[in-house]
């Protein structure tokens, strides 16, 4: 068994309410900032432990949507439900966010960055380090435990950032443009890597990206948002068959290409 199936991470997959089948549900959500309407009448829903991708043009309210789901913001109208929780505070307790830039702390080593959520929960550093260390090998980061982020490559930094999010022991992962800062080759490698990593851990995942291909590859459902004010203009059931296939095989299959064309057409 992979280390992902054991220990702390296994515990994470236990939802507060096992009866709950809703992963993320967003109903008629509207959010404004002063005069600016960032989101208007946004509705979508996914089951627990499935993956949804949100694509759309820059400034289309994608990050606002992510913060609403995370419980960092409240909607002006509508309801956001995360595994049964509708209060901002309760949503926050269920979600872990992987930010756009890796946001690793330069004064902490890679391992100490990865354990920060455990430390926030009051777990002593020594114990947190011992629990997290095995994942470094699994994530291709072996022997980089005590290296500062500045000495890591872009792809490695992103993996440490993902591990930090995972170690938060939350059932819902919110990924905000996780590979936006990477070059296209590293980006493709990281997408493939994340596809496998997510396959190992049953989690509800919301992925925000401007890259249609990335969303279709990594998610079961893809929601296309319009430019501001952000509205849902298309919902695609992507759900690519990924087991035993390489990223290249998936993204070049006729079904995938057809879906990608539909999404790009919707964006205009």
């Amino acid at each position, binding site marked *: 068994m992979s280390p992902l199936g054991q220990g702390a991470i296994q515990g994470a997959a236990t939802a507060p309410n096992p009866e709950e089948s809703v992963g993320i549900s967003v109903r008629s959500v509207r959010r404004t900032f002063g005069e600016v309407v960032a989101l208007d009448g946004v509705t979508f829903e996914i089951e627990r432990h499935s993956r949804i991708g949100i694509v759309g043009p820059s400034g289309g309210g994608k990050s606002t949507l992510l913060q609403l789901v995370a419980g*960092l913001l409240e909607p002006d109208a509508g309801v956001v439900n995360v595994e049964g929780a509708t209060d901002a505070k309760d949503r926050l307790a269920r979600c872990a966010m992987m930010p756009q830039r890796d946001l690793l702390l330069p004064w902490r080593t890679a391992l100490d960055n990865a354990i920060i959520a455990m430390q926030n929960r009051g777990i002593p550093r020594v114990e947190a380090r011992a629990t997290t260390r095995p994942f470094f090998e699994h994530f291709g980061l072996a022997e980089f435990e005590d290296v500062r982020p500045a000495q890591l490559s872009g792809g490695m930094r992103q993996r440490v950032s993902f591990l930090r999010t995972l170690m938060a022991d939350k059932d819902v992962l919110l990924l905000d443009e996780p590979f936006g800062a990477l070059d296209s080759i590293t980006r493709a490698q990281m997408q493939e890597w994340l596809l496998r990593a997510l396959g190992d851990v049953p989690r509800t995942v919301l992925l925000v990206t401007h890259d249609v291909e990335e969303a279709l590859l990594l998610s079961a459902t893809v929601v296309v948002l319009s430019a501001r004010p952000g509205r849902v203009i298309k919902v695609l059931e992507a759900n690519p068959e990924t087991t035993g296939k390489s990223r290249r095989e998936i993204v070049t299959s006729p079904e995938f290409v057809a879906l990608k064309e539909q999404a790009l057409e919707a964006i205009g």
Partner: protein
Amino acid sequence: MSSQAPVEPATQDPSVAASAPTTGRLKRYWHLYGLAALFTLALILLWEVIVRGFDVPEYLFPAPSQVAVALRDDWSTILAPAMWVSLREVVIGFAIAAVAGVGLAIVLHMFGPLRRAVYPLLIGSQTIPIVVLAPILVIVLGYGIMPKLVIVALICFFPIVVNGLDGLRSVDDDFIHMMKTLDANRWAIFKRIEFPGALPSIFSGMRIAATFAAIGAVFGEWAGASAGLGYVMLQATPNLQTARIFAAIVILTLIALALFALVSLLERIFVPWAARGDAM
């Protein structure tokens, strides 16, 4: 005498490789400070030439060589004892300012209403000239070390608080959002994000403060003292011992530089991730 011996074999020795980093370091130091040293030396030379060329009397403007003579002659009797007095005032006053300044910056940062109430007053307090304040402090606190410590601390306090507050507030919202989703409470965000992130700013504030500290000690001594470099300058003025005044200034400058270097060294130790190329 034996200083030449190890150099010779080193050239044909495998330890030649080991001497490479030393050469590298010398090169680096030369790159960092070489021009400054040359420029200072040139200025001193120019000063010497002008003073001698125009035959300026020593009591008006002493030549560097005359200052050096004063440094040598007055060192053990007058200057060294005065230096220890002033150095103590500078170091203790600075330490008080560092602790109080960082402490106040943290308190003001953590309590928004308090910051809004106190911050304008803090800036307003800086417009009160210390020179005016110094005699009042001497009247209240007497002729001992206390008024000097207060003056040094007051001068050093401001840049530390302002830089500290700026550093604590400059943390990107994205970090705060991320930490909130990673179960961080207010204290965890402060301890793990804001405070370490503010350390480079706090140290810049302390480096600025380090250059002010010596001036503070002199103000304090001018307002009323029986020892210290400021007192020596005050005593030397009516006697037209200008070279001695300059000698005191040289020592004060060295005290300020040493404090600055100490703060830079502490920064390298405590903030290694933000290592800056120029130490001074």
